[in-house]
């Protein structure tokens, strides 16, 4: 018996869409923060300059996203869920902004969603459209599936002078922390001009539906895959 989800996944595969894979979450964390999950998808390309189509898409998104949207953002279920989660893990969402609030604030300050590069533009489009927290890593520098766990005693985040306090929540691979959860990226783990494969990672929290997470990853991956250099 094939479940509807399986049917959807098969349809996506037939259409050529890769299915986001499930990362892991440390059992103790899952027990404490139910609903916390990580999904990821690897795209066989790095970043680079944004083609005209992506810039135009950002422009259209800017035209649709006005001050009223920014004000009502935190009343919407997904941005609210991230704000609540931030409070649960000791982050103040008014100081450490959730990803969707950060891009909204940038939109308000700069007057538009400014194009920076293909990856950042794809992330901006996906985050604004879905509200889901996304980030990207250099897939060739991630060893094994990524997940979320608390840091071990004496563990470090590359590029930081001090050890991480024990049990700091991090996105990690099999070997080391890649970044803080909703925080700093480990040196050399992010996407650089040399990156050949990009891993798009979505952090799902309680209250964020699976479909929104999948949509966010597909949007981001789709923008990156469909982008052809201006010629």
């Amino acid at each position, binding site marked *: 018996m094939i479940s509807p989800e399986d049917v959807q996944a098969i349809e996506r595969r037939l259409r050529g869409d890769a299915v986001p894979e499930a990362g892991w979450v440390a059992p103790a964390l899952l027990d404490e923060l139910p609903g916390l999950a990580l999904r990821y998808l690897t795209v066989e390309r790095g970043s680079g300059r944004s083609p005209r189509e992506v810039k135009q898409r950002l422009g259209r998104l800017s035209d649709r996203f006005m001050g009223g949207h920014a004000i009502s953002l935190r009343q919407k279920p997904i941005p609210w869920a991230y704000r609540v989660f931030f*409070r*649960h*893990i000791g*982050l*103040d969402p008014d100081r450490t902004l959730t990803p969707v609030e950060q891009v909204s604030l940038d939109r308000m300050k700069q007057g538009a969603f400014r194009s920076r590069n293909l990856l950042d533009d794809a992330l901006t489009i996906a985050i604004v459209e879905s509200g889901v927290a996304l980030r990207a890593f250099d897939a060739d520098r991630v060893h094994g599936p990524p997940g979320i766990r608390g840091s071990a005693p004496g563990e470090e985040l590359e590029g930081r002078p001090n050890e991480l*306090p024990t049990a*700091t*929540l991090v996105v990690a691979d099999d070997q080391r922390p890649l970044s803080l959860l909703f925080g700093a990226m480990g040196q050399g783990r992010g996407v650089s001009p040399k990156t050949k494969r990009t891993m798009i990672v979505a952090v799902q929290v309680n209250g964020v539906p699976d479909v929104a997470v999948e949509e966010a990853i597909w949007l981001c991956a789709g923008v990156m895959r469909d982008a052809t250099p201006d010629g």
Partner: protein
Amino acid sequence: MVTTVRGRTKPMPELLEHPPSAQGVKPPGGAHAALLPGRVSDDARRRARGDLRRQIATLERELAEMFAEVFPRREVAFEVAFAVPAAGGPRVLDIPELERVRDSLAMRVGDVQSWISERGYVEERNRGFLEQLIAEPEKYPWVRVSNEDVGEPGCRHWHSRPRWGLVGMLMGWWRVKLSSGCPLATGRG
């Protein structure tokens, strides 16, 4: 600590979570230790943390609704006092830390509610006054009421002014002029 279920004795569920003591040696205090104040099972602590998280979620929802309600008034601050030091970054908070977050959120919700209530009263009175101003501008010469005074967005204001300048002033010909709104946005260039 035991409880009787249908005539049989069973350990309390929370005690089942504790590892059995090695080789049958009882911990100091024996069975009475569990009755001492301050001893709470891990399960109870987890439930307490879950309750606190739910309360935080509810308060955050209330604050979010107020944020939209209060806009565009700028006097009220929405930043909750940063009760939980975050020097170490994101982590699973324990009960006292969650309580601090919950309490600071509750305090902020209370502050904003009272501010909205007071501000609502003032704005209601201002709206009543604006109606009087429009009806009898000569009674309130040179008085100006802005959108902000009546809790509306935008830059519009009502201004009681004389018709034809000095002549109108001497003759008592007053009227209310409505401004045309906010200045147009200008480009960077």
